[in-house]
C-alpha cells in the first residue's frame, strides 16, 4: 500500500501557483481525482477558496523566488500550472519551471495574448481566457443565431 502511494506521488505531483478562482477550482478538481497537489500563493487568505474536501498541500510564498519553488518541491513535479493574476509572473514562473527544472508539462494563463511570442521557443502551453471566450461565444452564436437568421432570409 505504501509503495503505491509513494509511486503516485512521484509521477503526478502537480504544483498550482495562484489561488484565484481558476487555480482553486482546478486544485479542487485534481485533488478530488486523487492527484497530489500543492497550491502556492503569496497570500494565505487566498487558500479559503479551496473546498473543504481539498486534500492537497498549501504553501505561502512568492513564486518569483526560485527558493520558494524549491521549497514547494518543484524538482519532483510533473506538472506546473501558473495562474496568478499577473501575466508577467506567470511567464517568469513558467520559464523557471521549463528551463531550470525541465518540468514535462507547464501550463500558464495569459490575459494578454500579445505577449505570447515570448513562449514560441519554449514548450509552454498557454491559456488565454479572452481568446477562449471569444471562440466559445462565436461558436454559440454561429450555430444558432446567425444560422437561424440565414434560414429566415
Amino acid at each position: 500500500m505504501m509503495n503505491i502511494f509513494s509511486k503516485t506521488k512521484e509521477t503526478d505531483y502537480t504544483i498550482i501557483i495562484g489561488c484565484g478562482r481558476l487555480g482553486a477550482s482546478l486544485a479542487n478538481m485534481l485533488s478530488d481525482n486523487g492527484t497530489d497537489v500543492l497550491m502556492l500563493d503569496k497570500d494565505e487568505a487566498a487558500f479559503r477558496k479551496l473546498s473543504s474536501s481539498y486534500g492537497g498541500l498549501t504553501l505561502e510564498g512568492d513564486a518569483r523566488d526560485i527558493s520558494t519553488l524549491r521549497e514547494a518541491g518543484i524538482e519532483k513535479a510533473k506538472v506546473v500550472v501558473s495562474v496568478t493574476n499577473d501575466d508577467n509572473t506567470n511567464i517568469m514562473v513558467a520559464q523557471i519551471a521549463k528551463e531550470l527544472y525541465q518540468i514535462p508539462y507547464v501550463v500558464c494563463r495569459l490575459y494578454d495574448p500579445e505577449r505570447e511570442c515570448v513562449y514560441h521557443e519554449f514548450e509552454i502551453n498557454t491559456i488565454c481566457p479572452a481568446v477562449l471566450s471569444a471562440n466559445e461565444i462565436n461558436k454559440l452564436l454561429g450555430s444558432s443565431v446567425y444560422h437561424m437568421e440565414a434560414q429566415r432570409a
Partner: protein
Amino acid sequence: MKTSVLLIGGFDMTRGLASSLLKKGYNVTAIYPDYEKCKVLAEIEGLQVINGDGTKPFILEEAGAEKMSIAIALTDHDDDNLVICELCKKKFGVKKTVCTIKNGENTEFFRKMGVDAVVCATNAITSIIEQQAFMDEMTTVIPIGDGRLSIAEIPISETAPAVGKKLWEINLPKEVIVGCIMRQESNIIPRGDTRVLAGDVLILLSSAKQETTAVRELTGR
C-alpha cells in the same frame, strides 16, 4: 547615427540615467506608467517620454523599440523586467538588453533567458555599504563584472607597513595587482622594484575575495 537607448520604469534611475546618457549624445526614450511622473520626466530636455506599461508590446512599439540598440528595464519587479527584456529581444530585435533585479538568486536564470546584462541592485548596494563601513582606508571602490572584480583607491598613510618597501617585497595575494601609483601630481605605472612612499595613493585591481587581504598588507588595518 546616434545610438538609441530605451529606459523602462524605475523613476529615479531613469531620471539619473537619462540625463547622463543625453549628455553623452545618445537618443533616449523613457517609458513610465504614472502620468504625473511622466510629466516630471518630460522636463528633461531632449528626453522622449511615453506614458504606459512597458511590459505591453504595443507600448514598446509606440516607443519605437525596433529602432533601439539598447533596452534597459528598471522596474521594481523582477518578472516585469524579464518580460520587458524578452519582448525587446524577441519581438523587436533589440541587440542589447539590460535589467536590474532585486533577488540576486535570479541572476543566472535571467542570463539563461537571454538577458545580456543583469545588475542586482541589492547586491551592488550592500557590497558598497559593506566596503564603506568597514574599510575607511579606501576612498573609492568600483565594482566591475557584478562585483567579482573591483578597482580600489588606497591612500598610504605614514604608519602603513608598506611604506618604504618595494612592490615585490610586499606579500600581496595572487589575484591582486597594483595598477598605478598616484604620487603628488604624477602617475607612476609601477614595476616590481618601485618603492611605495607615504602619501601615495595606490590603484588596486583585485578579485573581490582578495581585496581585504591586500588592503591589510598595504595599510596594516
